[in-house]
């Protein structure tokens, strides 16, 4: 137990360093961006018609003349005190924007995460246990096709099929257009989240299925499966008793590592469906020069991804007897 606490402590320290590095990198990239926030957000024509005083006030608002070091340190100081600043574009506290966006995205991501995990595992185990035979060839073919398909293209395809041709699902956004916020039902939200969630699930699933297939195929050619066959265990029992047991550990790692991919995928998918989630906010903030919002999103995303990997590492120590008991022995 003490060992595990020490392990968690070390990981947390690493997380702090990581977040610092990620925020700095995002900041540097933003400073190096050739986009002028004034021109992007106000527009060339509007700028031309403004008085120099107005332009100067806008420049101050967007922090054009503040030295980068001062900007970053100012942001960092506030962040450490718990203040994430105010979004320049949404003119609301970053904390509040993040909260709303994250709530929207979490729907998608949690659904995609669970769905892709379960389906990926089932397909991967099926393919791996039947390597070289028809089920394997079908599953592998589909998964390879999906993983070589860009997520946004798949999103467009689903959009065309379900929203345009069949007309069964809405074409975008998270709630019906023009509806009063109070009259939006849970069913409305689910219907709007369905397509983006499905896209994310399918892309995530292919990856998990291919990796699981590889692991499962290795297990099926292992010495202990050979011995199980020699002992007359039927194939179903071998897959159930030995296959799933041994594929569980890599699957666990894969499942938590896939958080980052789902996060990354959500940026593209939300953009296609105009879904007001975290990913879309990240694109808007990046293109619009909204530094506090972008840094806020970056740090939160990195923390969630890191948290996922940390949970996987900790679970490994609990689930794998070789680690659990190995530590107890020493």
């Amino acid at each position, binding site marked *: 137990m003490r060992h595990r606490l020490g392990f968690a402590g070390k990981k947390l320290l690493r997380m702090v360093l990581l977040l610092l590095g990620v925020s700095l990198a995002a900041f540097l990239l933003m400073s190096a961006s050739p986009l002028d926030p004034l021109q992007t957000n106000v527009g060339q024509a509007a700028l031309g018609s403004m008085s120099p005083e107005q332009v100067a006030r806008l420049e101050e608002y967007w922090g054009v003349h503040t030295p980068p070091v001062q900007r970053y340190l100012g942001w960092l100081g506030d962040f450490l005190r718990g203040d994430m600043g105010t979004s320049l574009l949404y003119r609301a506290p970053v904390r509040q924007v993040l909260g709303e966006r994250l709530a929207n995205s979490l729907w998608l991501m949690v659904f995609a995460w669970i769905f892709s995990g379960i389906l990926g595992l089932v397909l991967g185990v099926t393919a791996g246990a039947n390597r070289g035979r028809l089920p394997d060839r079908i599953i592998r073919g589909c998964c390879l096709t999906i993983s070589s398909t860009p997520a946004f293209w798949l999103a467009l395809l689903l959009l065309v099929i379900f929203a345009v041709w069949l007309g069964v699902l809405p074409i975008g956004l998270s709630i019906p257009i023009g509806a009063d916020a109070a009259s939006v039902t849970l069913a409305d939200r689910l219907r709007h989240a369905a397509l983006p969630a499905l896209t994310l699930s399918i892309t995530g699933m292919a990856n998990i299925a291919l990796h699981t297939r590889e692991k499962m195929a290795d297990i099926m050619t292992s*010495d*202990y499966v*050979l*011995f199980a066959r*020699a*002992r*007359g265990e039927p194939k179903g*029992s071998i897959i159930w008793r030995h296959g799933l047991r*041994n594929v569980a550990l890599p699957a666990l790692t894969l499942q938590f590592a896939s958080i980052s991919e789902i996060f990354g995928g959500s940026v593209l998918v939300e953009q296609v469906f105009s879904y007001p989630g975290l990913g879309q906010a990240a694109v808007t903030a990046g293109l619009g020069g909204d530094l506090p919002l972008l840094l806020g999103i970056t740090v939160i995303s990195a923390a969630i991804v890191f948290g996922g990997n940390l949970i996987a590492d900790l679970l490994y120590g609990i689930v794998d007897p070789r680690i659990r008991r190995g530590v107890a022995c020493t």
Partner: protein
Amino acid sequence: MEPILEVSRLSISFTQYDRGVHQRRLPVIRDLSLTIAPGQVAAVVGSSGSGKSLLAHAILGILPYNAHLEGQLRYRGAPLTPRRMEALRGHEIVLVPQNAGYLDPLMKVGPQIRKGRRDKAARSRSLGVLARYGLGPETEDLYPFELSGGMARRVLISTAVAESPRLVIADEPTPGLDARAAGRILGHFREIADGGAGVLLITHDLELALTIADRVAVFYAGETVEEAAAADFARLERLRHPYTRALWHALPQNGFQSIPGGQPYPGAQPPGCAFAPRCPDARPECGGAVPWRPFQGGMVRCLYPKGGTAV
């Protein structure tokens, strides 16, 4: 007595892809013959890479899909068909593999011995066999990585004995053990044979095999070159094949001398006698067909055998 297992003229080859799409047959075991009677320990002795383990897999019907089998296997008087293998393996015919790597690394020993059965009878049976090999009930709760080499071997034997088998195939059960532990493990196989089962002991260690075996089949480059009573190995003059004699000379108590050269790889065997290139007595005829034939109380694959029990 009716033999438990008769292997006659068994050949195993693999289909391989060689240079692109060109298929070729790679012969690994050629023309192997062997008989095991109840209560007998028959040792198959050969150096690594001579195809010994495949013999075990062939009898159990667990060869890889690209393997090709010829010849005849008979179990208790009837042909051993794939369907029969499937029904018998793990029950009447059991395998004792080499090491703990053949146990599921994430499953405790107890459930592995019981093969997933959870009833009380299975539980008392697994405890019973463990106790028979000096392993306490706490062994059931250990994972394979927590077993020592000797314990792992005894657990593997327990998995076999828990089934009351008629034929036990032990595939290299002793490497990595010191001489005393190895002797004890082999003693367990002798006991199993004395209980009426047949034991096929596959090993590269002639010296250890001789301590428990009744019959010894010597394997060279995928072929049996000699089958003899274990007692024949007491005197050099009784051994029939030049390779067996070379093995005898390589034993520590007989001078520890090795002959130059190495065993040919599968697919690279010379025509005729595979041992001819290293044989001190080879003649031009050895490049032709060399039949497997009875000779002086044993079997030999040599045109000019020596010795035998008559000497």
